[in-house]
């Protein structure tokens, strides 16, 4: 064994390698993205790794691998499980031969997501077991257990870390070397692998019986534990349990019941843990899952135990928890005064910092060009998931809707059908286009919609940390591959008009938008310019004496590199990339572009 300082996601990847994983597939999404990246770093090309085109594809690739007896892993964020739910719900019925671990990382807060959905609910919905790690070190061990249970019961299993487990670093003892699992190979058996209603009916019955058995098995699972002996007890899972432990470390007598396998609920374990307990506080992020399970158990066994938590308002019903929320909620429950902090009630007003497009981001140019071209016209701007959702920030204010991956393309059509006097736009990034944009474009052409598709092609998956995708010419096996051309895909679908333009060339971009707005049918503008994080800055812009301090540059495009110093417009040279967009806006030509250096 050796010690490595790794992120929770790294620990999950290393745990999978220790368990002999043969294949892993995923789609990037905060907070899950570093799992596949760590696998790539440590696997030495020994296993098949891929960023799949989306989560559904990843799930299906992994299913086939698990049908052969190989061990497979799928990684995604919680929203990704919605995309992959079609194969996931079915593979839960069919079952697997090799261990299959589906990692779905939840995001309490939410910090980088559209919803605060709870993967534990999905586990119960799909009737598959779920593991809930509370720290990076534990995740390394637990993911290996997850493979064991998956194979033991021939079922895919869910593994549900949350942001603070995924992105917490700690030193973890890991194996010195990894060996992939030996597997038998696919054995044809249509009665087993082809899901007909008859098979679904039979397997449903089997699964319900089996889950009772798994619940019993989980009752002796090593990470389901309780400490202390008080009549009041806290029930917690995941990182919330770590917050509770932090608060209770000076009070070893107070009872803490930790549930690491929320579904199937380990009833026997819980009954034992509740012996002598009169009052329970459930402390968990997202939904009151453990609370409802505890209430059910108490009802089933007619126990005289009071249960509180999210349902009665004893714990916050939404948002991320913390050590401080634990001190507050647990302190009240146990009657422990956490003491006063510093009095900061006289704190000055703090500047708000909504996330914004980076200085020099080419998306800014694309949004601004469309805004300019559509000035005074009725137009709807459908956004999508990625950095470019930030195009909604003032002063650009160019994202009217954002729903889910790929939705902008189809929503632009919906707006057109009911308000055909509006010009409707869909803004979609290159990775999102491949993930879930293409079908929407086919829908538009087939149903004769009228819309303008803006593909913001920055040649990377920027928001989640610059993962490669089908348009980048690289894959996760480290191979250079043929770039899949967005333009050719659109040609193949049969769009009326496809224009490719540099979004940092303002006049050309505005012209492209105007040209497309003149025509009927489905038109596309590919705004092509690399993300500033993967390209070299062109230089720095400079403001000369001609500046009349009208602040038009700041007010129009809101670039973070444009600041005011003592009331005078200035350029923050640490941020400026020399993109020159501001220079094209300045009414008195006071800004020199990158060429000036």
């Amino acid at each position, binding site marked *: 064994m050796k010690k490595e*300082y790794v992120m929770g996601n790294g620990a999950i990847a290393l745990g999978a390698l220790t368990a002999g994983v043969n294949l892993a597939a995923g789609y990037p999404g*905060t*907070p899950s993205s570093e799992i596949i990246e760590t696998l790539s770093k440590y696997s030495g090309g020994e296993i098949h790794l891929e960023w799949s085109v989306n989560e559904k594809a990843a799930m299906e690739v992994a299913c086939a691998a698990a049908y052969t007896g190989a061990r497979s892993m799928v990684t995604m964020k919680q929203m990704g499980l919605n995309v992959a739910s079609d194969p996931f719900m079915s593979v839960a019925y069919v079952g697997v031969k090799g261990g299959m671990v589906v990692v779905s990382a939840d995001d309490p807060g939410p*910090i*980088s997501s559209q919803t605060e959905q709870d993967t534990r609910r999905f586990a119960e919905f799909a009737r598959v077991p779920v593991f809930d790690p509370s*720290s990076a070190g534990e995740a390394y061990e637990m993911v290996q257990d997850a493979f064991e249970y998956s194979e033991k019961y021939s079922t895919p299993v869910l593994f549900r870390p949350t942001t*603070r*487990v995924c*992105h*917490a*670093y*700690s*030193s973890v003892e890991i194996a010195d070397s990894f060996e992939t699992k030996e597997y038998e190979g696919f054995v044809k058996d249509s009665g087993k692998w082809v899901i007909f209603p008859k098979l679904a009916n039979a397997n449903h019955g089997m699964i319900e019986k089996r889950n009772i058995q798994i619940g019993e098995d989980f009752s002796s699972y090593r990470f389901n534990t309780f400490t202390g002996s008080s009549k009041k007890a806290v029930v917690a899972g995941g*990182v919330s349990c*770590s*917050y509770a*432990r*932090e*608060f209770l*470390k000076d009070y070893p007598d107070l009872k803490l019941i930790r549930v690491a396998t929320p579904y199937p609920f380990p009833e026997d374990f819980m009954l034992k843990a509740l012996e002598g307990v009169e009052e329970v506080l459930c402390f968990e992020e997202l939904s009151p899952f453990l609370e409802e399970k505890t209430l059910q158990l108490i009802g089933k066994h007619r126990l005289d135990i009071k249960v509180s938590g999210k349902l009665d308002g004893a714990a916050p019903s939404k948002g991320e928890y*913390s*050590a*401080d929320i*634990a*001190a507050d909620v647990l302190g009240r429950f146990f009657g422990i005064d956490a*003491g006063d*902090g*510093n009095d*900061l009630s*006289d*704190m*000055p007003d*703090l*500047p*708000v*910092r*909504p*996330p*914004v*497009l*980076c200085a020099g981001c080419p998306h800014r140019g694309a949004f601004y060009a469309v805004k300019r071209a559509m000035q005074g016209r009725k137009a709807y701007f459908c956004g999508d998931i990625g*950095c470019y959702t*930030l195009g909604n*920030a*003032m*002063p650009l204010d160019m994202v009217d809707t954002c729903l889910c991956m790929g939705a902008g393309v189809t929503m632009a059509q919906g707006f057109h059908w009911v308000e055909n006097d509006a010009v409707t736009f869909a803004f979609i990034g290159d990775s999102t286009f491949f993930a879930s944009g293409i079908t929407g474009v086919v829908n538009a052409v087939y149903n004769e919609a009228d819309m303008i598709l803006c593909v913001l092609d920055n040649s990377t998956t920027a*928001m*989640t*940390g610059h993962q490669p995708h089908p348009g980048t010419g690289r894959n996760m096996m480290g191979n250079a591959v043929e770039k899949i051309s967005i333009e050719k895909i659109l040609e193949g679908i049969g769009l009326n008009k496809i224009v490719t333009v540099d979004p940092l060339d303002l006049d050309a971009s505005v012209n492209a938008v105007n040209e497309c707005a003149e025509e009927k049918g489905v038109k596309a503008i590919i705004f092509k310019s690399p993300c500033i994080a993967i390209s070299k800055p062109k230089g720095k812009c400079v403001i000369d004496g001609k500046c009349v301090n009208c602040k038009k540059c*700041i*007010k129009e495009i*809101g*670039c*973070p590199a*444009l*600041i*005011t110093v003592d*009331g005078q417009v200035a350029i923050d040279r*640490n941020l400026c990339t020399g993109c020159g967009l501001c220079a094209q806006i300045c009414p008195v030509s006071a800004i020199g572009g990158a060429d000036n250096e």
Partner: protein
Amino acid sequence: MNKDILLCGVGGQGTVLAAKILAAAAMNAGEEAHSAETIGMAQRGGPVTSHVRIGESYSPLIPEGKADILMAFEPAEAVRNLHYLSRDGIVIVNKAPVKPITESLHDTGYDGSEMISYLKGKCRCVVMDSEKLASAKFLNIAMLGIAAGTGRLGFTKEQLIVEIEKRVPARFLEANIEAFEKGFETGEEK
């Protein structure tokens, strides 16, 4: 030894690297170390924090009122996170403000100075004049230098330098070490 260090700033200022160096240096000194980062959408110009916990701990996040050192890369971010500081803790704060677009648009005159005077009235405070000390590129390393200089980290200057050497690109190493040394002197003076 238990030591909680909170690093805070604005996405892109280099808090993550500084946190990694601190954790690695602590481990070199034979301690357990944990850290927790802000990753994702907030990195795009939003407030970011790195929680570094040295010694035995459970929560990945530092509880309020427990941080021994608050290393703030930006004055308003220091104030935003001041509730984490323990009563005898120390704040190391970079004086240079990062103005959000909302400020440039509405021009409320935010320049960080009000934050610095508030901090001075509330706690022990080392104010870093980054313009004199180092270019923004080496801000994180200069901050580490100050922290080491105050003698409150619990491990040596050399233990930190070893980790800096491992993590910064060779061509910038000399400039980084220079920034660290200048920071160290500033920290020592306080």
